[in-house]
């Protein structure tokens, strides 16, 4: 694993915009950063694939464990009234995309270590699935890349199509200023349509509810299956939350509500409890002492690296701000990210249905926040 400097393509902004990545520059700084790339050997990519697939199995095991021991959900911050229907959905095992991104710390040697699993509303999908592939095809057509996300998601939608009434899917998202949500959700629509589904888009705040608590679109059509790029912890906290959970039978929600178990950092101490010798886990616990003097404190429900605190031998060495200060925290042993002169890389490995499906790299400060840049990669050797 090596970082290589490159000259960005002439007019790269226009090129990636034409591929849908309109949020390529944020506050004057490139978010899509092709002034460098990471180079891996095939053996290193296989190590990442194996780590992600092994962890996916562990998350399944953790979900089964929580279904048998719901008392352990007390610290997940999930409203009490949600727990029973959530576990019922887990046991019901309805169709799901079952996609997500495992974020790893790794320097290319030994085993990658898991920071967290983003699997309810994972970002950087278009960058990983399309933009970096087109970049590689243009600059390094003779080399390979770890990127099958696009094709695996189409395959997954095709597999699920028969379970969607009328082969129809609604897609919803928040109307964000950067258009990142809009285009990521639209990309998902594209993939579903390529799998033969008919899709309809609706902004999250335009969804309605009928007299029986079922959700309807702007034309008052009952929504039978919906992909939402909007976190479950927000849905259940909002006005329609209780009705949506009560009428879970009326709509197939993608991803399912049980993703609240996996995408919650409260699962990290449980994983460590279940498999304390797992090669891809860092020690994690509810109290700092249990993981040692060099650790990271993480709010269980924060996003984009917000409200993280790094502590080394009793000294605070890094901290990020954000709106999640009130959230309970877990502690995870500190992993020293390999330092480059341009920042610290975090490796996001995608899986679809438990199969490794691609790699996206973010490079930023010691705490990977929303200012972290996306860098492409290639496989050489």
């Amino acid at each position: 694993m090596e970082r290589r400097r490159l000259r960005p393509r002439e007019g790269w902004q226009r090129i990636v915009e034409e591929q849908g990545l309109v949020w390529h520059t944020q506050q004057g700084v490139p978010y899509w950063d092709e002034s460098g790339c990471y180079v891996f050997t095939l053996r290193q990519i296989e190590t990442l694939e194996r780590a992600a697939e092994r962890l996916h199995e562990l998350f399944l095991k953790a979900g089964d464990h929580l279904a048998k021991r719901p008392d352990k959900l007390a610290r997940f911050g999930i409203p009490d009234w949600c727990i029973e229907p959530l576990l019922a959905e887990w046991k019901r095992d309805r169709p799901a995309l079952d996609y997500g991104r495992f974020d790893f710390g790794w320097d290319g040697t030994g085993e990658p270590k898991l920071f967290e699993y983003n699997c309810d509303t994972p970002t950087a999908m278009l960058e990983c699935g399309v933009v970096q592939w087109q970049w590689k095809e243009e600059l390094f057509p003779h080399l390979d890349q770890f990127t099958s996300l696009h094709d695996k998601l189409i395959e997954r939608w095709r597999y699920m199509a028969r379970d969607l009434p009328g082969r129809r899917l609604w897609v919803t998202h928040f109307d964000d200023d950067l258009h990142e949500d809009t285009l990521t959700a639209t990309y998902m629509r594209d993939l579903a349509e390529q799998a033969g589904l008919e899709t309809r888009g609706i902004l999250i705040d335009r969804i309605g509810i009928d007299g029986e608590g079922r959700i309807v679109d702007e034309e008052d059509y009952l929504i039978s299956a919906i992909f939402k790029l909007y976190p479950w912890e927000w849905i259940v906290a909002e006005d329609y939350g209780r009705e949506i959970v009560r009428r879970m039978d009326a709509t197939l929600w993608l991803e399912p509500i049980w993703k609240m178990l996996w995408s919650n950092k409260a699962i990290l101490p449980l994983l460590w409890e279940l498999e304390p010798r797992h090669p891809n886990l860092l020690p994690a616990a509810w109290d700092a002492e249990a993981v040692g003097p060099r650790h990271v404190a993480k709010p269980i429900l924060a996003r984009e690296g917000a409200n993280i605190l790094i502590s080394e031998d009793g000294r605070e060495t890094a901290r990020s701000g954000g709106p999640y200060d009130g959230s309970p925290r877990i502690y995870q042993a500190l992993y020293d990210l390999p330092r480059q002169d341009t920042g610290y890389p975090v490796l996001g490995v995608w899986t679809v249905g438990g199969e490794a499906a691609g790699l996206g790299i973010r490079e930023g400060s010691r705490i990977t926040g929303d200012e972290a840049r996306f860098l492409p990669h290639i496989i050489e050797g």
Partner: protein
Amino acid sequence: MDKKLTLTVSLAAALTGLSGCSSRAQEVTAANNTRICVDEWGSRIDDDYCGRRSGYVGGSRFFYLRSGSPIPYYYDNVRDARYARYGSYDPPSGFTTRAPATTNMARSAAISRGGLGSSGRSFGGRGG
């Protein structure tokens, strides 16, 4: 090998003037004489109920729409003037087709809207 994108690319190109990917349902019209299954009150139901030999409990039957007629969705009522003037229970001469699958969905009146999205407004997107 290119990754095929249609909606994403066209939306990205149009985004300077658009917000969101919201789309409205199109009214579907019959390309040919079309039969739909309705219950005893005239509400459209799945064709399977008319196809069963034993019949639908309560008396389902086919309703025939002329070519060019708007096609009702599930639970829309053919007594509604929008549909009634285009059709009848008497089969027309010649062949009839089934309604397009895109009309096989149900409608129900919203009693409220806007009960989702407030966290997105507070936190500015979903992140992750």
